């Protein structure tokens, strides 16, 4: 388990508070309250940051069985092979529009999903295949969506950027950078409102943190004690812009501080690290330990191996950088772990690889054979109300 530096968070008053007791006392003047004589007497709060990195987890220390690890491994591989095949199909023009691959980030999706409840809502950006598959979307319906077919997860209406599988509590797939962040906080808000013990997870990129929507949503989450993990997948680039070139300060961990939110920094290339972090954070967020719901700001440090989308010449990074990152490949690392700890043999793993490949090929066949949506379906799903009057 990661070492943590939990500290008592600053006292604050909830928005939905009793009318009478508006004890506005000292907070805004806190900075001055400490001493009348300038900086000498003032010490700012220490940022509350937990590091989930190099914790030395084993699957046993995390309470995972060999089967669990193999299932996770299999799913990571599925995400990888699914996308490799999708890229190929994009080349063959079976898939159109934008296609953003998650390759390299599979430990994040997989660790997060395995560490949380299947009913915990998940919402993310357009780089959404990995999380969808981790959450149990079938490769068939995912691939059919990419092909724009009626059996796609969004009936061919969403495409790569707008995967949805509400039955799996996977709520998209959102194309506007940062736009899903308040929505994700609202999902956690609903859990708190209903008292259902859920913990929402909203994922977004290092580029999206620069949207105003992040700031507003993070503050609301903190103010209302929303059970939500606000997760930036820092893969170091937003298209061709590195984090350093997008931020006044590249240390994203700082971004939880102004809201009084605990920040977690997680090694996103290490499946167990992600799993361990998310299990602890989600449980604390849902109040499993103390009955108190709360949000966390989570920076997962990961890396995108492919271009931003299919048309990215990637001049913004060096070959050396990419080579050096390959050594951290979360799938290879997990494979090594499995072999070292003899959770499976190389032939077992080859077998898994074959299965996964076959599943993805079957998905391609399925997608090929699924019909195009009937043109009449274009007018469906705009409103719940079925007899809604349209002007054509």
């Amino acid at each position, binding site marked *: 388990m990661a070492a943590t530096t939990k500290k008592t968070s600053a006292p604050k008053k909830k928005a*939905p508070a009793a009318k009478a007791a508006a004890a506005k006392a000292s907070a805004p003047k806190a900075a001055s309250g400490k001493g009348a004589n300038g900086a000498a007497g003032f010490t700012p709060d220490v940022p509350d940051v937990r590091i989930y990195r190099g914790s030395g987890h084993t699957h046993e220390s995390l309470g995972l069985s060999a089967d669990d690890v193999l299932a996770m491994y299999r799913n990571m591989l599925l995400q990888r092979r699914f996308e490799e095949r999708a890229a190929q199909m994009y080349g063959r023009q079976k898939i159109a529009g934008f296609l953003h691959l998650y390759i390299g980030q599979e430990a994040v999706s997989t660790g997060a999903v395995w560490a949380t409840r299947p009913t915990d809502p998940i919402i993310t950006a357009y780089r959404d295949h990995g999380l969808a598959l981790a959450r149990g979307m079938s490769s068939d319906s995912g691939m059919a969506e990419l092909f724009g077919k009626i059996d796609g997860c969004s009936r061919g209406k969403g495409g790569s950027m707008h995967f949805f599988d509400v039955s799996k509590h996977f709520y998209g797939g959102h194309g506007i950078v940062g736009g899903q962040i308040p929505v994700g906080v609202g999902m956690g808000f609903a859990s708190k409102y209903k008292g259902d013990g859920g913990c929402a997870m909203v994922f977004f990129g290092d580029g999206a943190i620069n949207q105003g929507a992040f700031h507003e949503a993070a503050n609301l989450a903190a103010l209302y004690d929303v059970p939500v993990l606000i997760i930036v997948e820092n893969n170091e680039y937003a298209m061709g812009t590195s984090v350093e070139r997008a931020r006044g300060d590249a240390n994203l961990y700082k971004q939880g501080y102004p809201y009084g939110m605990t920040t977690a920094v997680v090694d996103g290339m290490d499946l167990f690290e992600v799993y361990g972090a998310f299990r602890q954070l989600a449980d604390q967020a849902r109040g499993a330990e103390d009955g108190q719901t709360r949000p966390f700001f989570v920076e997962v440090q990961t890396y995108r191996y492919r271009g931003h989308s299919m048309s990215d010449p990637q001049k913004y990074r060096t070959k050396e950088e990419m080579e050096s990152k390959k050594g951290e490949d979360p799938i290879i690392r997990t494979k090594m772990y499995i072999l070292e700890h003899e959770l499976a043999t190389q032939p077992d793993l080859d077998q898994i690889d074959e299965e996964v490949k076959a599943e993805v090929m079957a998905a391609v066949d399925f997608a090929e054979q699924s019909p195009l949506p009937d043109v009449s379906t274009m007018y469906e*799903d705009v409103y719940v109300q079925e007899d809604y009057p349209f002007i054509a």
Partner: protein
Amino acid sequence: MAELQFREALRDAMTEEMERDDTVFLMGEEVAEYDGAYKVSQGMLDQFGPERIIDTPISESGFTGLGIGAAIMGLRPIIEFMTWNFTFVAFDQIVSNAAKVRYMSGGQARVPIVMRGGNGGAGQLGATHSNSVEAFYSNVPGLKIIAPSNPDDAKGLLKAAIRDDDPVLFLESELMFGLKGEVSDDEDYVLPIGKARIAREGDDVTIVAHSKSYWLAMEAAEELAKQGVEATVIDPRTIRPFDTGAVIDSVKQTNRLVIVDESQPFGGIASEIGFQIQQACFDHLDAPIERVTAKDVPAPYAKNLIEAWMPSVDDTIAAAKRTLYM
């Protein structure tokens, strides 16, 4: 029937729906402890407590998105905007998320959210505070838009909006919150979304007008009557979906149409209604369709300027007369 202020009718609608359905909550700036910037939610905090009447920071994009997420998860949020002017900072949440999530998910998600607040001119407030948003939001499929002109419609339609499974934008008016009117005291008074109300019948000209403009139109009609011109006045009540049929039926009788709408003219809903009617009633129109709108400049502050800027009874009478070549 009880005589209620517009704000009371809204409050009653929300209160009744919150009483019958636990998933309904109200969120917005100053809705709770302050009792609402315009006192629409007065007393609701006391009745429902801080878990369901929720004050927010000034983060329209944030709390609109929060409402959308909560709606997707099965709650029925009512988001109050202090006014619709302030939704421009939440525009993306409304247009990209509330309106489109259902479609993009192939019908898996539903977004039963109501967003409401004052819209349009509200006196000498200047250009940032005098926007009518009909033109912006009615262009967007996936949204429904309601804009009632009286307390009775306000109550029946707000209850309908809260029960509706789709995102509904509910446009009120700061200048009408104190307006009194008879309100049905049916136990469960719900009006249909998308149905116009024929407020007055006359054979000479049809005037379509919603919200505040409705009252201009009625005043103009009374004045016209004195001059021997009998107008039909139609209050569409819902902007999207628009009850084109009701207007068509009337224009087929009057052969003349005036639309009053205090939005900016260019691509406003007056143009839309006019366009649809010139198509549907081409052979029935005896004169060009006229519109009476705000002037095509930002809203000024000075008293005489803002009065000249807003559509007026006189403008409406003049437009009606033009259709009659009077």
